[in-house]
């Protein structure tokens, strides 16, 4: 009886384990199959031995490694943006639809304010060619004022209507048509393009040159080729907008030195020294301009070159305004200082000013130019400049070189430099203007920058500069408040300068003013009257225009008081 019960219990108790054993045995079979499969793989035996050994020594380690493997798998399977996912609010489809219904975007651009309307009329409408004399449409009456002296154009050497330049452009158009019809790397390069870059390099004394389609795009495309994350740029804090954007888009680390202050530059370099010597050999640049777009002055190049050589920095120099205007042959700031171009590692410039054409360029050593051919955005992703622009540039350079005489000032540049000297001496010696305006530019600058006298500005309670770090505009930009991209005082000060310009139009003189857009600029700016000089002006034209300018400035600024300034602001608002 006993035995029977025991066998029964044995049988019943064995029933379940047998079921388990069946599965366990198949699992074991699978496991051995897996192991033997791994063994057949070359090197599989080694792995198994390794796992066996490690398990024997430290069984916990197997568990730990298993966990690690699971973690790794989870990591790879997880969404790339898992961090964002956790931040997201869970919403039902209906809620999403309601939110979409509810969302109202701001207008695509802020509407033009009443106070800004005058800016449209302030864009001079020209009829016909832009030469040293232009025909301007009077904004109110729409009547054409003929033969206005053009002191607003950047064609410093009066090359735009030079017959030789024109005929060379026409020759190219009759051979090659107008457009280049392709990027430089894809059948867009004509022989005249190659000639132009060779001519530029030869004229400026560099190894090689490269031509771009637009001046404003050149710096923003060239500098980011050589400045990447981890590289360093030490930048003058008065550089033009395109250089500001160029260094900022390149994601390198940026240090700003005080405008033209070589001591400050050196102190920055000195303070960086330790860090630089220990760190990797990154690319280091000093970025400045030959003749500043915003001030009309130049850095002390001799000192600059000495400093950059001492600290082994490279110099990137924007010579958009200095080429053609500075130096006995118009070769720019280095020629004025007697420094060879090879000392300036990278020169950026424009073909649209002194070269009477359109486009931008960069010259420097072979390796630098070669790198741009493949990695400079504006060169790779864009059609090449029209061939006739290239041949016009070559024609201007050939003209300049042909009239060059050793030891003398180039006769094509000389009248310009004389005009500059004359105009700036007239301004410096004017007692009538002494308390009203101050000339910010240097005496050699072809672009005269005239500001309202600092004392007068102070009495009007105007800030030292508009925009720039910490200003209302910068805050508005940061917070995306586009309707606040407006500074009442800046607008009024610009308008007062425009009144001078408008008045001068009746005296047949066309000036301009700095048309800087505050919310694009990173650095502070002050409104200025700007006079562009031209080699084509005669002495008497300069003298008579100065009298008119003096008069207009006097009439508009001498009566200016804090109260009248405010009234002008109000009148703009409610006109």
């Amino acid at each position, binding site marked *: 009886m006993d035995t029977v019960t025991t066998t029964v219990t044995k049988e019943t108790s064995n029933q379940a384990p047998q079921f388990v054993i069946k599965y366990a045995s198949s699992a074991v079979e699978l496991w051995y199959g897996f192991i033997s499969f791994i063994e057949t793989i070359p090197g599989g035996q080694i792995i198994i031995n390794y796992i066996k050994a490690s398990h024997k020594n430290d069984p916990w380690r197997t568990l730990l490694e298993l966990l690690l493997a699971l973690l790794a798998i989870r990591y790879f399977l997880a969404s790339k943006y898992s961090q964002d996912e956790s931040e997201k609010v869970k919403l039902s489809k209906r809620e999403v639809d309601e939110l979409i219904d509810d969302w109202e975007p701001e207008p695509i651009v802020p509407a033009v304010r009443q106070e800004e309307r005058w800016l449209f009329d302030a864009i001079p409408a020209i009829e*016909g060619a832009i030469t040293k004399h232009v025909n301007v449409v009077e904004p109110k009456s729409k009547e054409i004022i003929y033969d206005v002296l053009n002191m607003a154009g950047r064609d410093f050497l009066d090359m735009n209507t030079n017959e030789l330049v024109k005929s060379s452009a026409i020759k190219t158009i009759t051979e090659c048509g107008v457009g280049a019809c*392709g990027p430089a790397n894809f059948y867009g390069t004509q022989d005249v393009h190659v000639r132009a870059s060779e001519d530029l390099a030869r004229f400026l004394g560099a190894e090689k040159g490269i031509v771009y389609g637009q001046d404003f795009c050149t710096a923003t495309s060239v500098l980011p080729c050589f400045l990447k994350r981890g590289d360093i740029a030490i930048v003058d804090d008065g550089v033009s907008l395109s250089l500001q954007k160029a260094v900022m888009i390149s994601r390198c680390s940026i240090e700003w030195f005080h405008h033209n202050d070589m001591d400050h530059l050196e102190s920055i370099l000195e303070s960086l020294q330790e860090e630089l010597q220990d760190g990797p050999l990154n690319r280091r640049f000093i970025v400045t301009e030959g003749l500043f777009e915003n001030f009309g002055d130049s850095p002390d190049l001799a000192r600059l070159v000495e400093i950059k050589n001492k600290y*082994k920095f490279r110099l990137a120099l924007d010579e958009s305004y200095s080429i053609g205007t500075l130096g006995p042959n118009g070769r720019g700031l280095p020629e004025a200082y007697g420094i060879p171009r090879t000392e300036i590692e990278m020169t950026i410039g424009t073909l649209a000013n002194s070269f009477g054409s359109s486009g931008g360029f960069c010259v420097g050593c072979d390796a630098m130019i070669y790198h741009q051919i493949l990695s400079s955005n504006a060169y790779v992703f864009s059609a090449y*400049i029209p061939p*006739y622009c290239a041949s016009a540039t070559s024609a201007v350079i050939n003209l300049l070189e042909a009239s060059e005489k050793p030891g003398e000032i180039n006769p094509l540049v000389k009248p310009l430099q004389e005009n500059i000297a004359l105009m700036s001496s007239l301004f410096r010696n004017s007692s009538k203007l002494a308390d009203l305006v101050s000339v910010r530019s240097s005496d050699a600058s072809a672009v005269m920058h005239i500001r309202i006298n600092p004392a007068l500005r102070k009495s009007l309670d105007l800030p030292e500069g508009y925009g720039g770090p910490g200003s209302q505009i910068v805050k508005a930009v940061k917070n995306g408040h586009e309707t606040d991209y407006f500074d009442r005082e800046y607008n009024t000060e610009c308008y007062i300068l425009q009144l001078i310009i408008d008045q001068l139009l009746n005296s047949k003189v066309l000036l301009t003013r700095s048309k800087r857009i505050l919310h694009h600029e990173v650095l502070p700016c002050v409104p200025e009257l700007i006079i562009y000089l031209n080699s084509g002006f005669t002495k008497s034209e300069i003298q008579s225009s100065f009298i008119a300018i003096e008069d207009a400035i006097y009439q508009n600024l001498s009566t200016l008081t804090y109260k009248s300034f405010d009234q002008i602001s109000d009148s703009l608002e409610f006109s």
Partner: protein
Amino acid sequence: MREIYTPNTVPNAPEENLTAEEKEDLEFGKLTSTDHLYVAKYNQNEPLPTPILDEPPYYIVIFTYLNYLILIIIGHIKDFFGKRFMPQCFDAVMPKNGYPPWYSAFESFYPRRLKKRLDDCFARPIHGVPGRYVRCFTRFSNDYNQTFHYDGGLTPLLNLSSYNYLGFAQSMGVCTRDAIEVVEKYGTSSGGPRNVIGNTDLHRDTEKVVAEFVGKDDALVFSMGYGTNAHLFTSLANSKCLLISDSLNHGSIRFGIRLAGAAVKVFSHNDMDALEKILRESISQGQSKTHRPWKKIFVCVEGLYSMEGNLCNLPKLVELRDKYKFYLFVDEAHSIGALGEHGRGVCDYFGIPPSRIDILMGTFTKSFGAAGGYVAANQDIINRLRLDISTQCYGESQPPPVLKQIATSLRIIRGDLNGNEGKERLGRIAFNSRYLRLGLKRLGFIVYGADDSPVIPLLLYAPAKMPAFSRMMYEQGVAVVVVGYPATELISSRVRFCISASLTKEDIDKILRVVDVIGDKLYLKFSSGIAGGEVHPGDYKKGIVPRWNIEDVLAKTPEDCKGTMY
């Protein structure tokens, strides 16, 4: 009398004594039959012509990767030994006197080790009009493309490489005559930025013509197409705005977006569902972290993608725009002039009023034989942009001859000048594009893009086939552009045919014959038929691949390509 020039110096063009007829024939072929015209217009009753991508066989993909692997390994071996035994060849990438190199060896590995091998296929210097024929300076290299030697001669090649969709790259005819007149009257330069001085009657006139042409209130013109996009977005968006960009948008849009500092999201190329998903999520979630609503959302697409030949899905985009209230930016760099019944771009092609697109941007390089770009929009938008785009105040304005070329060519397209010439040009490019595309499909090539697109990319895959194809075509007298990584995905190297109205049907016949032979030699015919080219409709489903012989293609395709279903 050909003298051998010093290496690396492109010679001046030789003196020419072509007659006017010869020159005209080189620039713009005469239409041989009115049968070779077509009107490119999307039939609204049909489903959207979404191009179907054909996949290459697996062995081609593997072979392509292997190709790159070998190239990369050999490159590294060369670098390793070269730096040790021939340091003089590595000057540019080695630090010198305490100065870092201009570019690192790693950064320049691709151009030095891969692209250098096919440098002879790029930047071939030319002389003269890149019209129906482009004339390249004959050159050769003895040292694997380190230096090129020129013999001073020119080789005329049938031109499938230039952006000359409507054939306005000409040195004769009314456009050129006008441009020359303008040089005489206005000179070569515009003297400064638009808002300072460079605002002549020509600028105002051209803007008016452009605005009318694209169907907007007003337009702004700029001297460079790339620069138009590069500095546009900073005036539209700020850090509290969202820009949603197609993954294959052009470099200039990407640069402009980066410069704007706005938040960016990318949707995969032409994937409208992905776009909608991003839109729903972005609007409902708002800005990251703060969850405040976005101030503005822009969707940036191109009308015609220059590497794929695809059109944007405009009907769907404007539908989404109505629903989600975003602002739509369409870059018509390649489509303006080249697409639509009247050549007015994608809006014209799809029959969608331009008012349903907020900002239309385009360039003048491609269809008008000029240079530069435009932005067109409603009056209040342009008013603000006129004061606000940085190029307007800081950069040079359009030079006069270019403006005149634009205005005159636009008037021809509109039919105001030269009677039917504009219509003929539009008809020719539409026919040429469809003919070559269908011909290539029937021969068995994998071709990307929409039926009416004048950009026809033919897939080569293996990198070694790029220079081979380009050189063989050169030998047969056809100029083509080959593109590979990084402009395309690593494996999808391609040759890009840019069709022009200046080509005749007989030119396309010749091209098809040449490509047919080279395609066999290089083993390029591996299409499955999914993207078209079947002998009988439904062949693909039966597993029959399209491999027509060249004579049948030439005989039947000119008529068949006009059909709606091919």
